């Protein structure tokens, strides 16, 4: 049996975010109404202050969820649908490296295509940007990872995969 990782598009999360945005709009308009009604005295009203703080926190939570959701979308976009569990795990290790190098979402996307062996012009077409932009992204990837070319990036990744692999069959 071929095991496949979970890489479905996170529709549930999107639904949750949409529902929370509707609630947050409602609470925010309520808070604004209160401040309109009470004016500056609202600042001394504990109930209104707690209400404002909750509305604010809800908005923060929504922003956090959107960040998380975009991360999930990136993961889904970079994982091909029929990957095995092992390949998905390898992908996660590679992605962890990209994050530890501090790559931006664009650079992570370019680096993923680069590791898959695509040419600059292919990556440019896939991303809908100019080849010069892709070259600039690649230079940023080399700079941030302390490498000089595609080969060095690959050896760095493979090296770490071999080091990080759990010790197996040491007793035999």
């Amino acid at each position, binding site marked *: 049996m071929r095991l496949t990782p979970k890489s479905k*598009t996170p529709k549930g999360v*999107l639904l949750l975010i949409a529902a929370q945005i509707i609630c947050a*709009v409602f609470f925010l308009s309520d808070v604004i109404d209160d401040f309109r009604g009470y004016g500056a005295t609202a600042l001394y009203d504990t109930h209104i202050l707690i209400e404002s703080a909750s509305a604010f926190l809800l908005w923060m939570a929504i922003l956090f969820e959107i960040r998380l959701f975009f*991360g999930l*979308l*990136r993961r889904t976009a970079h994982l091909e649908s029929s990957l095995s569990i092992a390949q998905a795990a390898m992908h996660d290790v590679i992605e962890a490296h990209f994050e530890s190098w501090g790559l931006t*979402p664009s650079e992570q*996307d370019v680096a993923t295509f680069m590791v898959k062996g695509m040419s600059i012009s292919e990556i440019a077409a896939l*991303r*809908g940007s100019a080849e010069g932009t892709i070259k600039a992204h690649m230079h940023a990837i080399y700079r941030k990872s302390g490498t000089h070319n595609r080969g060095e990036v690959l050896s760095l990744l493979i090296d770490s995969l071999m080091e990080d692999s759990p010790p197996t069959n040491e007793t035999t």
Partner: protein
Amino acid sequence: MARIKVWDPFIRLFHWSLVILFAANSLFVDDDSKLHIWVGYAILALVGLRIVWGFVGTPHARFADFPPSLKRGMAQLSEMATRRKHAHAGHSPLGALMIYNLILTLLVISLSGYLMTTNMFWGTEWPEELHEVAVAWAQISVVAHIAAVFFETRRLGVNLARAMVTGYKNM
């Protein structure tokens, strides 16, 4: 960079008349006035024409050009997440969902508003409540629509608001 003709004169006229009429009725015109009712009829007529135009109009105006699809909407969100840039000539998938949302909401507003004027629903509360909830939803949608136009214009480098004035997209 190519200059592509996207929106025909009817679409542009429809869009901006709707902006003016909806803004008028939801913000300025007295709710109980005759004018409010006439503006409402005008909006209903505009939306009706837009629906007809969605079947017989120019290529990008047709519903077949922007079918409602959650899957394609998700794909557009993925493009945002990975910072890929593929501009759409007509409506983008998420833009399309907003168009359907606005058309349906405007129909609900017009029809519930009409029911409030009929004798049959004299004294019943629900048409008025539905009318108000739908208007609030439309206002939230309009704010989201404008925010999305700004965001997508910046993300893709294609001035969407100008395209709705001139009819052309530079992409």
